[in-house]
């Protein structure tokens, strides 16, 4: 059995935006680290997109050498406090842990988080800067961009990040809620990246304020990590009624703009009494749990497949259930109804059954004729996925783009244009923080090779 994670009580926490999981203390961490067998040929590291020497950092924790533990992690990962919180470890490193065969795997993510939090409390040590004259521009300051920038800075490049929003962090700032990913942690890790020499320019919309072609006149290479910021809608009648939000808008208002502190902060958000969140990924869980915290009485996850197919992390689903989110499975919205003022009142849904597997490998949901019913709702949050944001790719002449608007790259992030690299959700479509970081890192290595060989 793994050492339990201390958490805020589920009844208490729906009334605040504070972080749900408190994190291990030193005693918990050592206890959990002691479960690690330190395998001669550790499998866990094979599951890590950024190849952290997991076995080694856990050994340091066992020996209470916490400083050494975090240094080991940081050799490969500049955002450990973030990854320790939001990586889907259960499908990566922890899935391969040998202990998982018979019982529970070592809680690698929690240990990573512990090491990062320990260092932040003690004061982060900044390595010396090495300067070169080669300059790289990074577009977007989300997980892919931050990682790429940090890796290049460590290699001595002069790196500038261009961010379109007023705050740095991309999805870590606008998307993931405070109770799961405290902004102070994101800010601390970004501040570390700045201190190792990365310059960050916010409020610059590349493609509008300045083009990639213009950047190439000043920089030796450009990395594009602009993410999957384009919200998808259901394309059902009356989806434009007031009270129907894209999850992106809803979460951006709350997280980036602090709408949960309205009117102290100027940006409002409207949450009614009965909220339907459509979709069952992490973004849907975040939207549902945020709605509860904003005072909604009943929050429903409406999902067209069954629990087994839900794309959200198990931990997030569990947290949502504990907090009282209700799951309406095998149900799909077909139409929304509003009142005379144009606000949502009801939603018509149809029951679904699962057919043969589709191209995603999951069983395809099929509507059951005549099973339509309506539910009273006053807020609908559409969380059925995001597509790559076309704003930047559209403005680069000759850039090869895939059918979903993603930038086509090779496995090292090279695009169809010389000196232009891309990674993260803009290349892969919506995925995870860590896979974006993995690609940011690979691209940094490719950019280094490209500049040295030029």
């Amino acid at each position, binding site marked *: 059995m793994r050492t339990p994670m201390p958490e805020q009580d589920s009844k208490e926490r729906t009334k605040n935006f504070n972080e749900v999981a408190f994190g291990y203390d030193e005693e918990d961490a050592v206890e959990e680290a002691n479960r690690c067998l330190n395998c001669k040929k550790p499998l866990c590291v094979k599951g890590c997109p950024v190849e952290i020497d997991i076995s080694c950092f856990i050994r340091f924790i066992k020996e209470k050498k916490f400083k050494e533990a975090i240094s080991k992690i940081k050799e490969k990962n500049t955002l450990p406090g973030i990854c320790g919180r939001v990586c889907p470890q259960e499908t990566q490193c922890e899935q391969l842990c040998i202990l998982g065969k018979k019982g529970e795997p070592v809680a690698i993510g929690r240990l990573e988080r512990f090491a990062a939090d320990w260092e932040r409390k003690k004061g982060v040590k900044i390595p010396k800067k090495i300067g070169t004259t080669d300059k790289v521009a990074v577009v977007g300051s989300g997980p892919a961009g931050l990682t790429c920038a940090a890796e290049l800075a460590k290699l001595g490049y002069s790196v500038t990040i261009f961010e379109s929003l007023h705050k740095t962090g991309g999805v870590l700032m606008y998307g993931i809620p405070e109770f799961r990913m405290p902004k102070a942690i994101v800010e601390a890790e970004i501040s570390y990246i700045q201190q190792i020499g990365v310059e960050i320019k916010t*409020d610059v*919309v590349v493609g509008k*304020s300045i083009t990639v072609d213009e950047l190439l006149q000043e920089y030796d290479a450009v990395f594009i990590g602009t993410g999957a910021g384009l919200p998808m*809608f259901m394309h059902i009648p009356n989806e*434009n009624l*007031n009270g129907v939000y*894209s999850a992106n808008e809803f979460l951006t208002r709350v997280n980036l703009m602090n709408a949960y502190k309205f009117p102290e902060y100027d940006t409002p958000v*409207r949450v009614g009494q009965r909220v339907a969140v459509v979709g069952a990924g992490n973004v849907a869980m975040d939207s549902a749990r945020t709605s509860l915290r904003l005072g909604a009485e009943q929050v429903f996850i409406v999902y067209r497949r069954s629990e087994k197919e839900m794309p959200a992390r198990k931990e997030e689903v569990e947290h949502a259930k504990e907090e009282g989110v209700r799951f309406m499975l095998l149900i799909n919205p077909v139409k929304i109804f509003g009142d005379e*003022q144009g606000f949502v009142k009801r939603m018509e849904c149809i029951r679904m059954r699962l057919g043969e597997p589709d191209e995603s490998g999951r069983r395809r949901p099929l509507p059951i004729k005549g099973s339509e019913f309506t539910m009273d709702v006053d807020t609908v949050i559409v969380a059925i996925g995001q597509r790559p944001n076309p704003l930047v790719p559209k403005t680069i002449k000759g850039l090869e783009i895939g059918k979903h608007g993603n930038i086509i790259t090779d496995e090292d992030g090279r695009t169809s244009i010389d000196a232009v690299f891309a990674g993260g959700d803009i290349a892969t479509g919506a995925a995870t923080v860590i896979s974006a970081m993995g690609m940011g890192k690979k691209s940094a290595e490719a950019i280094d090779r490209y500049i040295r060989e030029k």
Partner: protein
Amino acid sequence: MFKIVKKEILAENTKRFDIEAKWIAKKCLPGQFVILRIDEKGERIPLTIADFDRNRGIITIVVQEVGKTTFQLGEMNKGDEILDFIGPLGNSSEIEKFGKVICIGGGVGIAPIYPIARALKEKGNNITSIIGAKTKNLLFWEEKMKKVSDEVIVTTDDGGYGRKGVVTIPLKEILEKEKVDRVVAIGPPIMMKFAAKTTLPYKVKTIASLNSIMVDGTGMCGACRCKIGEETRFACVDGPEFDAHLVDFDLLISRQKMYLSEEKKSLERHRGEI
């Protein structure tokens, strides 16, 4: 930080600000907009660019005080700084030689129509501008509009200045009288709606600039979604200008009212503080 280098009171509750924003001034074109956030607790609001000076790196915006943010902005002065100023966003106006073009500016919409009229004039179009406001003291930039138009018609709802009535009255008269190749209308949604209704029977291509609620302004949130024909589009990245004959103005009007009660609360709170 973005410095206010000039402030001018143009009309009742309407102020002009010149703001130092080199990158934006270098790039922006008529029809595009900026998003600003005054301070750390501020909201992001879109404002259509009213003028620009590429050499000096200056963007001009005209703000009508209606909500908390615009009133707060109105209280700012020359030398003060705005925390965030982002742009140029959206697509620029289509500037071609069309022939005879009518440019309509209603209320604060006179500001964004100005650079469009100027660019169209420079392209060799014959420009008739119709500018209108509820009352005389809400009207501004008549002289500026005269410089970029062949003719300027002024209307006020109460008849206190210029012709009495709304902008669609002279619009209809011109359409009856001569061939018009294009109409560009910027103003309150209700005005744009009726401008579109007026030109429809004459089959004159009509453009409206939609002032939807926005958050990021880069296509990420969908707050600004609008219905153009049968399609849902985002005003921030697909617009802000659209074929006015295809725009669902009633939806635009309804969506603008989404936060009416919150806006009221926010403004009252602000007034209590000052």
